[in-house]
């Protein structure tokens, strides 16, 4: 069975775990990103998808192609999984990081600066790792996910999600405001 066949076969039935050393992500002369997998296949503008975007950001990164639809693009087939993408070479790691940063708009809340209540609608100001944001919360208790004892994901009225990684480590004022929200 040649390499290409093996790759094809693997993508249809088994998960294929890639050695970080056999994956190279690089920017071509045309300024587009390419990903070469085990010198077998080069993917143009690959997609890097986290398998466990909430519980483990770095493990099991899926490398995929792109499927072109009439009006949009969708996730294409998987070429393999990286157990830990941080083990990629420096250039590859940097490009993957940029792509992940672009794909995952997942602000982490560092502090809750204010909360105002208008007949069941709460307008809060969150300080996040992506900057300060005014957030409107409605029926907040139906839009909260508790992960473990102290991690909280809050979805706002516009469908954006905010991650409080450890509510116990927020400053006391933020904790008191969080208690008001929840």
């Amino acid at each position, binding site marked *: 069975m040649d390499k290409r066949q093996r790759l094809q076969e693997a993508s249809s039935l088994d998960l294929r775990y890639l050695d970080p050393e056999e994956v190279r992500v690089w920017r071509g002369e*045309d300024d*587009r990103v390419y990903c070469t997998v085990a010198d077998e296949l080069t993917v143009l*503008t690959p997609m890097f998808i986290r398998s466990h*975007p909430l519980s483990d950001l770095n493990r099991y990164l899926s490398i995929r192609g792109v499927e072109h639809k009439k*009006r*949009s*693009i969708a996730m294409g087939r998987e070429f393999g999984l990286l157990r830990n993408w941080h083990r990629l070479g420096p250039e590859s790691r940097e490009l993957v990081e940029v792509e992940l*940063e*672009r*794909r*995952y*708009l*997942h*602000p982490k809340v560092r502090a809750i600066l204010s909360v105002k209540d*208008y*007949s*069941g*609608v709460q*307008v809060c100001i969150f300080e*996040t790792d*992506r*900057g*300060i*944001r005014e957030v*409107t919360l*409605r029926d907040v*208790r139906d839009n909260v996910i508790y992960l473990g004892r102290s991690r909280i994901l809050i979805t*706002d*009225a*516009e*469908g*954006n*999600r905010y991650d409080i990684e450890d509510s116990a480590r927020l400053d006391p004022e933020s904790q008191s405001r969080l*208690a*008001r929200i*929840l």
Partner: protein
Amino acid sequence: MAECLSIPEDVRHAVDSVTPGADIRILAFSDLSPDGAFGEQFLALADERILIFDCNGQVPELRTNLPLSRISRVEIETLVGGAALRAIIDGHRVDLMSFSHAMSDTFGRVRIQLDALIEGKPLPQVEERIKRCPTCGLVLGEYTRVCPRCLQKGATLRRILGYTKPYRGRLFLIGSLVLAGTAAGLVPPLLQRWLADRVLVPRANYHLLIWLVLGLALSNIVHTSMEIWRNRVTAWLGARISFDIRAQLYERLQWLSMRYYDHHPTGTIISRLSQDSGGIQELLAFALPFVVTNIITIFAVGMVLVALDWKLALISMVPAPFLILISRRLWFLLRRAWHNYWYRWRRFHGLVSDALGRVKVTKAFSQQQSEIGRYFYRNDDLRSAAAFADQTSGTYFPFMWLVVGSGSLLVYYFGGLFQMQGGLTIGDIWAFLAYLHMVQFPLNFLGQSVQWVSRALTAAERVFEVLDAESDSEKARGEIVLENIKGEIEYRDVGFGYEKHQQVLKDISFKVKPGQMLGLVGKSGAGKSTIINLLCRFYDSDEGEIFVDGVPLREVSLWSYRGKLGVVLQEPFLFSGSITENIAYGKPDATPEEIMAAAKIANAHDFIIGKPDGYDEQVGERGNRLSGGEKQRVCIARAILHDPAILILDEATASVDLETEQQIQEAIARLIKGRTTFAIAHRLSTLRNAHKLIVLDEGRIVESGTHDELKMKKGVYAKLLDIHRRTSMIGAVNG
């Protein structure tokens, strides 16, 4: 369109710096910076160029300057938590800008507009869903335009009070009872004053003592009677007005256009009908009378206190502002503690019902220990919330009464001082204390009632939003009444989209003669059901015209037309009641013989007779006591009895076994005889006898003809037949 855009000055300057004086035809702001942080960028289309500026510095900085002519199309890539607008240039994808979910509608509009311009079409006007309050910018709830921050409470209240007009007499009675009750409530402290000064202190006037005690009893009885009477009348009025509003709301819901239902999930509508209309009742029966009565009491007591001794009155009122502030804060803490407890209780309940519902799976996987662990965690969560709520309540009320009691301490001290100086009597002080006691409760709870009224007014506004929505009845006025519909249907260049910017049907033209059967074929989402929806006139076409017997459908009276339509749907819908009632739904005056005749033709008679209660058998909620095939045949019997000129069969045999399908097919064959029939079916074999088949793909007619003609043509229909044949074989193997 360009003239309609309101262009901020800094945007104008920025664009002018690149293309001076050019019209800005498209403008959209993103809420993310180019580096993905929260910030601002904007995209402007000016002089046939896409200009993108980064606004995170002092002055907008040009980041992209792209001629529209270089772009073959634009697309949106959905990311996690947001999306990106991309342009396709020479087959390459170029990121234009990213945005969060908050801006997805805006950039959906931009994509449509840019694509239209790229294709050389005029700039389309695309309506964006209003997601933020136009006045204050607060994000609105889904499916509502009511902004709780900007709600004009006065106007809403006036509108609610408008419903009291038919009951003016009772309203007047309530007003009189409030005044009389308050006045009666003011009497006892005055009598107590006389009791102290003229009986207790001088230790004399036995007869006066009798009269004063009788007076106290009488005033208490009058006060309590007024209160009971007022409560009863108010409760009656609240319930009556709520009944009127619910009736009006339900009537409105029956006539609301299908577009309204497309944009409002059933759960939301039910909530308007139950919770929100309940909010109005709460407002009228409890909140408003509570507020009005307490305000009147505070004013009346205040005046009496000033009349007794204005200096002591002022002193005794010193703690009032603090009392209101402290009470608000403590109420807030208390409410939060209890909300928290209820929420934990709901989660706990959810866990238990979930766990007990899958007890077999838990045992099968030996997961009892992990279930116990999960339960323990949630139970502990509930325990701590319950303890906190009870402890907060246990602290709040004693503390509150301590604060409330501070007014009395001032009266004791200063009243005692004034008494020693000879300005006040013991009776005066006693009366003062009694009056103070009367206002302590209103002062304590009035702060809370503002929020109470606010919430009820917001609920009322959501009800009014439904009452003000567009309804079918408005479309149905003053139109042509077709007495005898022959059933000739023509679609002429029909175009339609549920959302104005997303066309579902394009250039649809065909003609069906009276009594003919038309089969609609195509993949899911091809537009089959939309053709039916337009025929039912649930929607009006955006382009072209549909004719019934040569008359444009939009000019035909909806009542006369829908009376001649019969529908058998994939999901047969029965309502709770007997089989007879369900069959006679479209013809309530049908005789038992007519009903049985219809059931016989629908192959339903035999199974109905076999039921213990025959035609009187109760079908249960949504007909859940009947099998799928039985329900379907009852629906066919209903359609036969209704005797429609135009019949719609929407996947009528999709969810039944082969034997039942055969019985239904027989029934349908009898039903369609002599009626113009539109049929949708996944099992293409069921359309074999159609006079004409129309094959749809992405909203367009791609093939039309008879079954044999299309089979010979070896096009889309032949391919679908082949897929159908192979799927049937797989089904047979698995079967």
